[in-house]
């Protein structure tokens, strides 16, 4: 390149840079003029004024085409591009599988309603519509459902109004859950405990009774057992009538009949409680009898009873491989096993408590909370081994002889979680045990006092569970 050519090329380059800069400034002036001067004449766009238009404007986001236009059959792509260019718009995308459908972007960033209106007036257009931002439907706010059971106001675990010095809202949101479901008599919960007073007036309607069509239970070793009202592993010739009260208390938490104008309401107003007795009048029993009772549940499940949950408000620090195997067998039969974390104020990660600490997929270990959302002073915990927490202090429930008593323990927190699991199954009857556990653990309210103390760090929330 000679010296003259070099200067000519340099001059040309400078001219091109100046032209480009001037064009850019022109574009910026045009946009500023539009934004400051408002509506522009003739074919220009107007701002949204009606509520509908404003709503469309509000849903619009930059970086995505604002309208979808279906051009009539036979309109060429050339014509489409000419029409869009005339309006300072551009075809952002062609929807290949729908003839004539294009996503169009307005380069002036006008509101979608206006652009739609413009295109709808064109004879070449079949229809035009905004590119709506698809959002989840805003859920209707749930209206709390309050039962008329006379002692419901003392059931802070279900609805904590701050009664007796409690913290308002420190509850499982049962009244909101009941707006979705109050339970189902198709769901059977096995209460593996000291039996249940199945004649209690607040429980009797929700007790499981062996269907007439189902033969009495038969075990090769135990023989034939009349299990009309459940199973008694201590004395198979007797029924599972509770002689202690503990099992009756747990049963009432899960499913005292709701809205019957008597006593209390359970987490489920309707459910079926299957009593299993392996603890005696003192409230203790043997590992072998617990295993026999679990075996009974599995057999009844196989025979067609929809028993999906075993509630186990008991335990010890002694590990039993046989008990663990029985619980694993329950898992293989799609049965959840909800267990008390224990009341020794220890970390179960270091000092395990069984059966709650068994590493079996269906086990849900439960810690207890007081009415102020504090971990109960007696409750065990475990960032790795205790799944979830529920109210377990001063819990009012059914007791022997049509009575009601307040009791405390992870024993009381456990049936709260079992009850919520039953509510979930009432709403989602086909849910697998894995899905059920996952749903439970995902349905908590985070509690400061539980941070680093349980797997979820939260209190079970029944309303979230049945969403």
């Amino acid at each position, binding site marked *: 390149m000679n010296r003259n050519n070099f200067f000519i090329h340099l001059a040309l380059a400078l001219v091109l840079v100046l032209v480009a800069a001037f064009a850019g400034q022109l574009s910026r002036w045009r946009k500023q003029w539009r934004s400051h001067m408002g509506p522009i004449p003739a074919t220009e766009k107007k701002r949204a004024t009606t509520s509908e238009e404003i709503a469309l404007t509000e849903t619009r986001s930059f970086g995505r085409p604002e309208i979808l236009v279906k051009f009539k059959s036979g309109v060429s792509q050339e014509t489409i591009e000419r029409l869009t260019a005339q309006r300072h718009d551009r075809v952002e995308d062609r929807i290949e599988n729908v003839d004539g459908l294009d996503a169009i972007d307005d380069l002036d960033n006008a509101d979608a309603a206006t652009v739609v209106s413009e295109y709808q007036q064109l004879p070449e257009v079949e229809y035009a519509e905004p590119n709506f931002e698809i959002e989840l439907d805003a859920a209707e706010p749930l209206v709390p459902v309050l039962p008329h059971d006379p002692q419901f106001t003392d059931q802070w675990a279900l609805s904590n109004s701050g009664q007796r010095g409690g913290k308002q809202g420190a509850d499982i949101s049962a009244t909101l859950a009941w707006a979705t479901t109050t339970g189902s008599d198709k769901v059977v919960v096995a209460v593996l*405990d*000291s039996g249940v007073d199945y004649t209690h007036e607040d429980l009797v309607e929700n007790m499981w009774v062996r269907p007439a069509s189902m033969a009495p239970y038969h075990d090769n070793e135990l023989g034939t057992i009349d299990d009309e009202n459940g199973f008694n592993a201590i004395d198979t010739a007797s029924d599972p009538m509770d002689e*202690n009260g*503990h099992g009756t*208390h747990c049963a009432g938490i899960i499913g005292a009949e709701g809205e019957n104008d008597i006593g209390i309401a359970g987490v489920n107003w309707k459910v079926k409680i299957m009593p299993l007795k*392996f*603890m005696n*009048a*003192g*409230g*203790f*029993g*043997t*590992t*072998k009898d*617990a295993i026999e009772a679990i075996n009974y549940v599995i057999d009844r499940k196989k025979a067609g009873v929809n028993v999906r949950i075993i509630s186990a*408000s*008991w*335990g*010890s*620090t*002694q590990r*039993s491989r046989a008990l663990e195997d029985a619980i694993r067998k329950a898992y293989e039969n799609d049965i959840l096993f909800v267990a*008390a*974390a*224990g*009341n*020794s*104020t220890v970390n179960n990660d270091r000092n395990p408590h069984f059966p709650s600490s068994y590493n079996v997929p269906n086990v849900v270990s439960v810690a207890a909370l007081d009415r102020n959302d504090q971990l109960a002073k*007696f409750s065990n915990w475990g960032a790795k081994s205790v799944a979830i927490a529920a109210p377990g202090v001063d819990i009012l429930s059914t007791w022997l002889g049509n009575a009601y008593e307040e*009791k*405390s*323990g*992870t*024993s*009381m927190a*456990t049936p709260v979680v079992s009850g919520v699991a039953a509510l979930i199954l009432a709403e989602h009857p086909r849910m697998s045990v894995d899905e059920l556990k996952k749903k439970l653990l995902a349905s908590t309210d985070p509690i400061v006092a539980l941070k680093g103390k349980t797997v979820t760090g939260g209190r079970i929330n029944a309303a979230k569970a049945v969403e």
Partner: protein
Amino acid sequence: MAIDKNSAVENARNDLARRLNVNAADIKEKSVEDDDFPDMALGAAEDGEMSGQMITGGWRIKLEAQGKTYEYRADKNQVRAFNFKGKNYRI
């Protein structure tokens, strides 16, 4: 039949006498206090025993024999030797 505090102490004393092979009259009652226990086995479960995880009210009984203190736990349903030579016993 429900056990009361006095009969619980008496049962405990007799049990300790048998275990230590001493005369019950030589066992001194050190203290008897109302207390809450962590479970229905009164925090003194035997091997292979499971118990309801409900806070249970009862009595903590401390007896003294041969210069040593021994603990028993009781409620209306039961009397238990706690950590006697490393083990628990329901009596």
